[in-house]
């Protein structure tokens, strides 16, 4: 099925915002798929990292609704392998930040069972709070 997308000033604005937050030039992505091929968490994602990049290039805010941006574990595998030297981890972080800065958390710490909290190392809890709460 062909999906027609018209790029509006609003789309352009969204792309620029992600460029600015991530410090990356997202239009450099040539959609080779190396990031998706090496991503250790891609099987848990609803869209691949390269699809995420494409949606941002086209300024499609729907990218923010995808689970993939939260499943990213910031492992930097894509970052070291991108032939265009784009730090894809930073792009995912920028997308998470856009949501978190609207005071919408992705995790409810209170809902985690006490026994679980007791056994988790601090680095797990602090990093989850840093990545999933605003």
């Amino acid at each position, binding site marked *: 099925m062909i999906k027609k997308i018209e790029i509006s000033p609003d789309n352009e604005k969204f792309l620029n915002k992600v460029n*600015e*937050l*991530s*410090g990356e030039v997202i239009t450099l992505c040539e959609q080779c798929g190396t990031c998706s091929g090496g991503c*250790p*968490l891609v*099987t*848990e994602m609803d869209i691949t990292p390269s699809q995420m990049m494409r949606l941002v290039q086209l300024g499609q805010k729907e990218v923010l609704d995808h689970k993939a941006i*939260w*499943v990213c*574990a*910031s*492992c*930097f*595998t894509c*970052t*070291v392998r991108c032939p265009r030297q784009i*730090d894809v*981890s*930073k792009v995912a*972080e*920028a997308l998470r*930040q856009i949501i978190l800065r609207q005071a919408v958390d*992705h*995790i409810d710490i209170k809902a*985690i069972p006490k026994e679980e909290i007791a*056994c*988790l*190392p*601090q*680095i*797990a*809890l*602090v*990093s*989850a709070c*840093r*990545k*999933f709460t605003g």
Partner: protein
Amino acid sequence: MNPTNTKETKSTSSGNMKFPYYPGCTLKTTAKNFENSAIATARALGVELLEIPRWNCCGTVFSLAQDDLIHHVASVRNFIRVQEMNDYGLVKNENRLVTLCSMCFNTLKSTNRRMKENAEDLQKINELMYREEDYKGNVEVLHFLELLKSLGYEKIREKVTKPLKDLNIAPYYGCMILRPKEIAIDDPEDPTIQKDILEALGVSVIDTPYKKVCCGSYQTVKDKYIVAELAYDILSHARKKGAEALTTVCPLCAFNLDQRQQAVKEKHPDFEEMPVFYITQLMTIAFGMDKDVFGFEQNYVDPRPLLKSKSLIED
């Protein structure tokens, strides 16, 4: 600084090289066995890890958003503490901060890099901490493995009194000491630093491509089964290649690969448990140290049956 620690340091270590040591939160709790075995190992090699007075949490993850300067303050504050250690004479002209935890290493080194490369950011951070002296940008962040490498594998080999013969170990590196490449301590695609240390201990090292595959990191808080699937792949692949155990240097990798084996078994009933060591635990055995320093009671999968079967420990 922990006063008992200082006393102990003074009484046992005259003449040892002294390094500012940043423990981080987890080394004081779930990874106490990592800290104890590393401090003992370092001491045996003539290095004293001096805990940084009044250290604070580094933030555990390096903030990747360009405009998010405030989250770098915590890391920089620890660099100021290292400057003070030099000013007060606790260490002599030693700006190398040593860390054990991979997450702390990544956060501290990435922050330091940004501060060194961006004078404007450094100035802003210094202005935010108006009650602290300025960070001058002179600290160097070193992972404990790099320190061991700089001492020389030969020196490690000389200290071995009980070679770990017939022990088949797959080293696991995780992400935070390998990526991004600007802060890596080794080749991000084919690291060998743990292999070199393990070989000096007499271990048969098993190489697996999963040595650098992410364990799922903080996803363990949100959904432990995401981590369990990755742990299953990493551990069962190592076993297929003949490994009897894994080594790591990251308390979060250790948690995900060791404790999460419980979740792995729920999903894969045929899965066989495999011990996960901190590499320094194996060093303490090979150096013939007292069993009090091994800290195996903190390992989830008990490594003692394996070690006993190889006659490496007694009980």
